[in-house]
Each structure stands twice: as structure tokens, then as C-alpha cells.
């Protein structure tokens, strides 16, 4: 491979041809500061913070977009470089509200951190009026808030929405000081083709895009003695929340999470993993039924609400491919106000059902009109991992000293198959573990389905299940989902079963997870997820005794009448910019009750 020799800050080094100055400098231990740059997603030289001096060049060069050349001499620390960076920062700050103390991103803000690192001591340029006002804040979405006052126009959100998710519901509008990153036609995010995935909120360097903060609702419920407040925790939260308290990414902290929720005062702490196991039973049986009775194939998973909104908008003609299973969050919600209420003799009207999710789209899902099969809104409020951490910090939880505690019955027991729902490929692996044994009535020789694990965008595997060759595919990110869906539309997809997760890496990389979330951190959370699976005594959903019990006591049969009513749902063809013509109002079109 061709290399180039250059000098950076008097250090001679050899790097691969095509390397940017930014990456080359890393090799000698210099992290050139950036605000708009994101590896492989956004290298546009827009923020001008990464400028360096290149000998012989007319002006300072943006290190993120300037490739090294043979014999290049670079200074990353000269007076001109430092002065330019500081001036740029000062100018950005001059149009930025100085309200760090009350910002959701206080102490976790790249603009703030950079101002601190550069010892910005004053902002000399004060604009008579800033470009955007509080009236421009977009509160329309149940998932995401846009505050254009805090936007530094780095375009990271636009890049992730376009290049990772293939949606691009926001773009730069207007020009000059009037520029605003926004949906078209002054609409709110709730009115446009936003999947609510929240990846934009993960990459925003400031507080311009954040999750909707619902902690106030939960505090009010916890303070209300007439409410029975219960909580469920998603698989991906337990491998990420410790990061909010300074622990290494991927630390598995299931027991501490349960203890922390009890400290907050929840009346019952149960687990979404229980309904993840239940999903496998229902979805596995639905799959077997579709294969044996000639149903629509490939069948596609339906756990990820950002993915569901995306297919409803972009591929409404393919909705019959979706499993009719509700997501584990919504199965839990429906059972909490029926099964659990009956068993505990609690009036379901007094139950306040909270879920802790790695996901901003779950907030949207909980508010969907049709997810009210208990007779109430099945899940009352959704908190992201970040919001839960905020509540715990508020009451001074010392994470490291928390004991490990167990979930409450009857929806607290789960298996390794449920834990791996949090990683891309996990739902498929969990389903295969069960479907194999249900069909063949034999133990699966190796339950680790490694070909569907890992960060590759689209993964495939073929398995022999009895007489059947089952072909499966797994995709994460909506951009990769689109590739599979186009194959289905073209009639070129001969898969039986497809798992799709909206976010990169699956839910462990969800839009509600701790910031930062990057490739390295995603890999660590995935490793933690598979470790949690291996450490659990039961690793197959159909071997969960609590699942056997709920069918015996309450549900009856998988795909039976009660399951059909409480655990399955329908989907809504939405279209991208307007309602599609010639499609039913919902799919499946019959009443699912």
C-alpha cells in the first residue's frame, strides 16, 4: 500500500496515502479539535475548528478534509492556528445562548468542552439579537426536541439522517444568519417523514437536538400515592447505563439497575426481557405458521418502532411482511394493565406504566392510537437511558455502591435469548434458538448463531431446521433496511425471515443511549450483551418457566385468542409526504381483535 511521508509539529511520520491530516496527527498523539467532523459520516470542513497551518498553503486548511501529501509540513499548534480556532469559537459562541447551566447537555457538550479546553475567557462580539428565538423551538414530536438557538450548523444531524438512515427529514434552510436546520415548510418533526430514531440527538455536539424530557411526568406519578407505578427495563439499558456514572461501556449492570429503580420508589420493577421472551414464542409460532400455511414471506421483525414508522412511510406496500407481534415494550404494557393487574388485584386505572428504553422512537410508539388494548394507554410514559440517569443523579445515587437486586415477579424472569434483543442480530438468534427446537423437537447443537452477530450492515445465514433450509437476513440502520426492502419489492429476496433494527448496532446504539455513542462504544455494549447472555442460567425463551406460567395461567395458547388481542397489532400505511393511494387504512386490514 502506498504511503506518504510528512512532518507534523516537527515529528516525521509515514502514513497511508489518502489519510487526512486529522487522522495522521492522531498517530503522533495530537487530537486536533473538531465540532462538525464525524468519522466516515461527516467530513465537510464546515466548522473551521480543525484548521492547521500547511507550509506553502495560502490559508489555514481544515485538517478533516485535507489529505496528506509527500513532504507536507504541518503545524497544528502555531500562533496563527490557535488564534484562528479561538476566533471561530468566539464567533460561534456569539450566536449561541449562554444558558449552559440550564441546558440538558450541560457538562456533556462539545462546544462547552472546547471552550473550556481553549480557555475562552470572553465573548467580545454580542449580536443585538440572536438568529433564532425560543419561538423557534420545535416541541411537536413526542420523541425529539429541536432548539435552533443552540444549533451551530455543523450538519452532523443532517448527515446521520441522510447517510445512515436514508431519511433526511431535516436540511439546511435559508442562508446566512437566517440559516436553520429544520424540516421543510416550517413544519415540526412530528409532521414530516421523521422516523423518531433520535440518532441526530446522539451526534448533536450541543443541546440543539435532544430527547423529549419526560422525567417530570414520572416524578409526579411516583409522588402520587394513589398510583401503582411500575417500570420495565429494555435489554440494551443494562449494558449502557453504567456509562452515565463513569463506568466502562459494556459493563453489565442488571442488578444495580433494579436496585436504582427501587431507590426511586417504583412499586414494582419488572423486565422488558420477559416480554422479549414472550415475543419469541409468539413470533416464532407466527413464523412457523407462515412457513407451513403459505403466509407472506419473508417475515420481518417488528420490535423497533423507528423501523416500523419507516416502513409505514417508505414501503407501505410491504407491511404484510411485518410480524403482527407488538414490540416487547407494548406486550409488557398490555399485560401490565390486564394480567398483572388481575394477579395483584390492582385497579388497572391506578397503574402508571413506565418503561426505560434506549430509544426515542419508543416514546412515539407508546402514544400510538392502536396500542391501547388493555383499555388504557398500555404504556404511560417512556424514559430513555439518559433521562433515567438524570433522575438518579438528582437523588444522588452512588452507582458503584448499589447492590445487585432481582426483578419482581411475575414479569421479571427472562433468558439470555431476551438479553440479546439489544444487539443487531439478537432477535434472529433468539428466534432461531426456539424455532429450531419447536420444529425438530431436538436440542440445537450450537445455540450461538455467530454469522448474524456484529456490526456488518447486512448479515445472512442459512440453517437446516429439520427438512427445511431456512434463509435469514439481518439488517441494522434504515439505510441497510432499504437495501433489503428494495430486493423484496423487486422479487429478488428469497429469505424466510428478516430482522431489522433501526439504529446502528441495534438498540445498544439507540437514540436514547448515553452520549457519546460511537462505533467503539457500540462494540463494547455488544460484547457486554453477549456476556450477559452467556452468564444467564437459561438461554432459550421457550425454557423460561415464567413464560410457561403465563400461558397456563392467563394467555392460553401462542397465537390464541387472548394473545391475538393483547400481543398482536396492525400497521398504518403513512406514505412519505402524503397518504399513499390504493392501500387499506391498516394492515392486516381485518380487526385484529
Amino acid at each position, binding site marked *: 500500500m502506498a504511503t506518504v511521508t510528512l512532518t507534523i509539529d516537527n515529528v516525521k511520520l509515514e502514513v497511508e496515502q489518502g489519510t487526512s491530516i486529522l487522522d495522521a496527527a492522531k498517530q503522533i498523539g495530537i487530537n486536533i479539535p473538531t465540532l462538525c467532523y464525524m468519522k466516515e459520516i461527516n467530513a465537510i470542513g464546515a466548522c473551521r475548528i480543525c484548521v492547521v497551518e500547511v507550509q506553502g498553503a495560502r490559508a489555514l486548511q481544515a485538517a478533516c478534509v485535507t489529505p496528506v501529501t509527500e513532504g507536507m509540513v504541518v503545524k497544528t499548534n502555531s500562533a496563527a492556528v490557535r488564534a484562528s480556532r479561538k476566533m471561530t469559537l468566539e464567533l460561534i459562541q456569539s450566536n449561541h445562548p449562554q444558558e449552559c447551566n440550564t441546558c440538558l447537555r450541560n457538562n456533556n457538550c462539545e462546544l462547552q468542552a472546547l471552550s473550556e479546553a481553549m480557555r475562552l475567557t470572553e465573548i467580545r462580539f454580542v449580536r443585538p439579537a440572536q438568529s433564532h428565538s425560543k419561538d423557534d423551538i420545535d416541541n411537536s414530536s413526542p420523541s425529539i426536541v429541536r432548539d435552533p438557538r443552540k444549533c451551530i450548523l455543523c450538519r452532523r444531524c443532517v448527515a446521520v439522517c441522510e447517510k445512515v438512515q436514508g431519511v433526511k427529514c431535516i436540511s439546511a434552510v435559508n442562508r446566512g444568519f437566517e440559516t436553520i436546520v429544520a*424540516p*421543510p415548510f416550517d413544519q415540526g418533526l412530528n409532521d414530516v417523514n421523521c422516523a423518531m430514531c433520535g440518532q441526530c440527538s446522539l451526534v448533536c455536539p450541543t443541546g440543539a437536538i435532544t430527547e423529549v424530557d419526560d422525567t417530570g411526568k414520572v416524578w409526579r406519578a411516583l409522588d402520587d400515592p394513589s398510583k401503582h407505578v411500575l417500570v420495565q427495563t429494555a435489554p440494551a439499558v443494562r449494558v449502557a447505563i453504567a456509562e452515565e456514572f463513569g463506568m466502562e461501556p459494556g459493563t453489565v449492570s442488571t442488578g444495580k439497575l433494579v436496585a436504582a429503580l427501587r431507590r426511586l420508589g417504583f412499586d414494582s420493577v419488572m423486565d422488558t426481557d420477559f416480554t422479549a421472551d414472550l415475543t419469541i414464542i409468539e413470533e416464532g409460532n407466527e413464523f412457523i405458521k407462515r412457513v407451513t400455511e403459505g403466509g407472506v414471506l419473508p417475515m420481518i421483525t417488528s420490535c423497533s418502532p423507528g423501523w416500523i414508522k419507516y416502513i409505514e412511510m417508505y414501503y407501505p406496500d410491504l407491511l404484510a411482511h411485518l410480524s403482527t407481534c407488538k414490540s416487547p415494550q407494548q406486550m409488557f404494557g398490555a399485560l401490565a394493565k390486564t394480567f398483572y393487574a388481575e394477579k395483584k388485584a390492582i385497579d388497572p386505572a391506578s397503574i402508571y406504566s413506565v418503561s426505560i428504553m434506549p430509544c426515542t422512537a419508543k416514546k412515539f410508539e407508546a402514544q400510538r392510537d392502536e396500542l391501547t388494548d388493555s383499555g388504557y394507554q398500555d404504556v404511560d410514559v417512556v424514559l430513555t437511558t439518559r433521562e433515567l440517569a438524570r433522575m438518579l443523579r438528582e437523588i444522588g445515587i452512588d452507582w458503584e455502591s448499589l447492590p445487585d437486586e432481582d426483578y419482581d415477579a411475575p414479569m421479571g424472569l427472562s433468558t439470555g435469548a431476551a438479553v440479546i434483543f439489544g444487539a443487531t442480530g439478537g432477535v434472529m438468534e433468539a428466534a432461531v434458538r426456539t424455532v429450531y427446537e419447536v420444529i425438530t423437537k431436538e436440542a440445537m447443537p450450537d445455540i450461538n448463531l455467530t454469522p448474524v452477530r456484529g456490526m456488518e450492515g447486512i448479515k445472512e445465514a442459512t440453517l437446516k431446521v429439520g427438512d427445511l433450509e431456512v434463509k435469514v437476513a439481518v439488517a441494522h440502520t434504515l439505510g441497510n433496511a432499504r437495501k433489503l426492502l428494495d430486493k423484496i419489492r423487486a422479487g429478488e429476496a428469497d429469505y424466510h425471515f428478516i430482522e431489522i433494527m433501526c439504529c446502528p448496532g441495534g438498540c445498544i446504539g439507540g437514540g436514547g443511549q448515553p452520549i457519546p455513542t460511537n462505533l467503539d462504544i457500540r462494540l463494547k455494549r455488544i460484547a457486554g450483551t453477549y456476556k450477559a447472555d452467556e452468564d444467564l442460567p437459561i438461554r432459550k425463551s421457550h425454557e423460561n418457566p415464567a413464560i410457561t406460567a403465563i400461558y397456563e395461567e392467563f394467555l392460553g395458547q401462542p397465537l390464541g385468542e387472548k394473545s391475538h388481542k393483547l400481543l398482536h397489532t396492525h400497521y398504518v400505511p403513512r406514505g412519505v409526504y402524503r397518504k399513499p393511494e390504493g392501500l387499506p387504512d391498516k394492515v392486516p386490514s381485518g380487526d385484529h381483535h
Partner: protein
Amino acid sequence: MGAECKCNCDQEKKLDALFAQYKGNSNGLIVVMAAIQEVHGYLPKDFLVKTAEELGVPLSDVYGVATFYAAFSLRPRGRHCVNLCLGTACYVKGAPDVQTILEQEMGIKAGNTTEDRRFSLDLVRCLGACGIAPVLTVNGEVYPRMTAEKVNEILAKYE
């Protein structure tokens, strides 16, 4: 599409031909938008949605382009486009007084169109004719050395 055909149908056909020519091709974005602006005098929302769908360009990008270039307008334009220069020379020679009178007579603020669609009034920066400042143009026709007194006489020429 719900948009009415207020112009002649040959022009609508020209638009349809452009949509067909650039189907799935984002390179045609500016060409198509310019044609819509020419046919309708502005960019009706329905046509921008159609542009996004036909060319396969995100609507947010279409809207971003529409709001970036001064040549595009998102609101209906009047039959007569009145541009007043507010460049430095025109400004010091009294253009602000002309602006006040124009806004009074039309009953609108600059940047808008009269309810009867008779006039659109816009402020521009330096038309390069500083020797005859302040300069007013109506539909491209140049009126030199404008004063507040001349405004009514000129507007009366345009129905």
C-alpha cells in the same frame, strides 16, 4: 396534482416533460424548480412535493434549495415585479423615502405581494446603475432618479 393550471397548458406540458426527463435524477433539481417558477411565478408546495417524489430528492433538500436562492419564491408573485435598489448609492440618494411611499401606496411591506396580485415589491442590492440613483425597476424596465413624487405616476402605468 391539486395545483390549478393558471397558465396555458403548453407550459404545463413542458413541466410534465421535465419531470419525465429527470425521473429519479437529482441533477435536474434546479432545472425543474426554475421551470416551475417560470410557469407559476412561484414554487407552489404541491409542485415541490412532486419534484421530491419524481426526482427522488428528499423534500428537505428541495426546500433547502428553494430558500437558498433569491431567484426562487415560495409565495405567489404579482403581475408586475417592482424592485427598488437599496445599494449604498441609492440609499444615500433617498431610496428609503421611495420605499416608504411604495409600501404606502401598495399597502404592503417590501418582500410581499398585493392582495390583488397586481404588484410584488422587493428590495435589491446594487443594480450596477449608481450614476442614475436611486433606481427602480418594474418588470425589468429601469426608472432612474426616483423620487417619492414620481412613484404614483409610474405605478399607474401597470394594471
